[in-house]
């Protein structure tokens, strides 16, 4: 393959139809409370990890909903499982469990993520 001194950029657009949504289906099956998130961001605002890394549990959850699971395994390692997010969530989403189930799902589904 030739090189012309520039490369073809990967499209940033979320291609919902092409994305693999098995992970979110698995997670939602076990922890249906994640459905009721209203994306307020309280969780991320208080997140211990989010103050020192670019971890955002709110955004991670939204990306998961869209089937965007790239770097997910690495991403959830940043969570310290302190449970503050869950404490502040106005709708009582079981966020701690979300992280735990993602761990479980990644192993179970043998995702290469």
């Amino acid at each position, binding site marked *: 393959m030739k090189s012309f001194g520039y490369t073809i950029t990967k499209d940033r657009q979320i291609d919902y139809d092409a994305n693999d949504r098995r992970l979110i289906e698995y997670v939602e099956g076990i922890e249906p409370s994640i459905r*009721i998130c209203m994306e307020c961001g309280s969780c991320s605002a208080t997140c211990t990890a989010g103050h020192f890394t670019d971890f955002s549990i709110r*955004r991670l959850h939204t990306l998961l909903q869209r089937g965007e699971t790239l770097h997910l395994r690495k991403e959830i390692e940043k969570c310290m499982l302190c449970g503050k997010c869950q404490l502040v969530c106005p709708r009582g989403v079981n966020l701690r469990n979300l992280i735990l189930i993602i761990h479980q799902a990644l192993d179970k589904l043998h995702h290469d993520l």
Partner: protein
Amino acid sequence: MSKTAIIIGGGVAGMETAGQLNRLGIEVVLIEKQASLGGHLKNWDRLFPDRRESQEVFDYLEKGMNDGISLYLNATISDIREAGGKFTVILEDGRELSSDALVLATGYDLFDARKKEEYGFGIYDNVITSAELEEFFRNNKQKNLFEGVQSKRVGIVHCVGSRDEKVGNLYCSKLCCVTGVKQAIEIRELMPDAEIFCFYMDLRMFDRHFEEMYYEAQEKWGIRFIRGRLSEAAENPDHTILVKVEDTLTGLPLKMKVDLLILLVGFVPSPETKRLAGMLGLKEGDDRFLCPSDEHLLPNSTDHPGVFLAGTLKGPASIAATIVDARAAALQVAEYLVNGER
């Protein structure tokens, strides 16, 4: 001698104002341009937030039409004259009706979705409006609508013709959000395995039980919400619709295929309101809806003595709010006719 009021417009506001005034002992003339009463209410299947049958509300309003109300259907007004505190309304067929007070209750029109060219309404086969969907529900024809639909993914687009300066409507139509959530749940009931998405900028669930309905839509019905205004739609080779939004909560552009795209069309002022307001010299707001004398204190009066306003000609309102407004208008009219106050 008893006093007379002419109500122009036989939708929810007009019917309720007429019924109330009639019960207060005022002689009422109700003029409606169409062949039957009910206006937009007749196009609804079930109402938000409790999803009661719209027919129940209509039946109540119709009961108020019983005695003493002179009804003029299929009647278009050609002129309104005024002399010595009396109004004469001249119909196109030459008939003349007179009264001591006028109530305008000429309502709204739905936004013409064709004006949002990039959404492809009227061009793509599977793009419809929320009003069309409601009509399908009402006539139990949903089956036709979803015939041949394979994966059953439905997109519901908020703010079509609202909050959009490009189409001249800066205002929020405020009832589309709850309509979208209601319809999402109703689609889900018909198609339990469908994926249903609402594309919104912010959900304005302002009234009682609305927010709870949003919660229920997520929790019980699994409706998904993507924050981002639809930028454009296109038709795929298989006639499904490709939608493009920015998923503003992830900060990424997003595309997805839907089998059916529903446009939540908002309120626009009706041309008939504009015409009659012109005859009577009434004030229009920047949003082109009519302005009462005082939005807080005299919401049904105008600067034109003896002329009153009721309902959605003043801006988007729910059926519940319209009925309250109509009753307030009736009281205002009665007070004017009895005490001569506006």
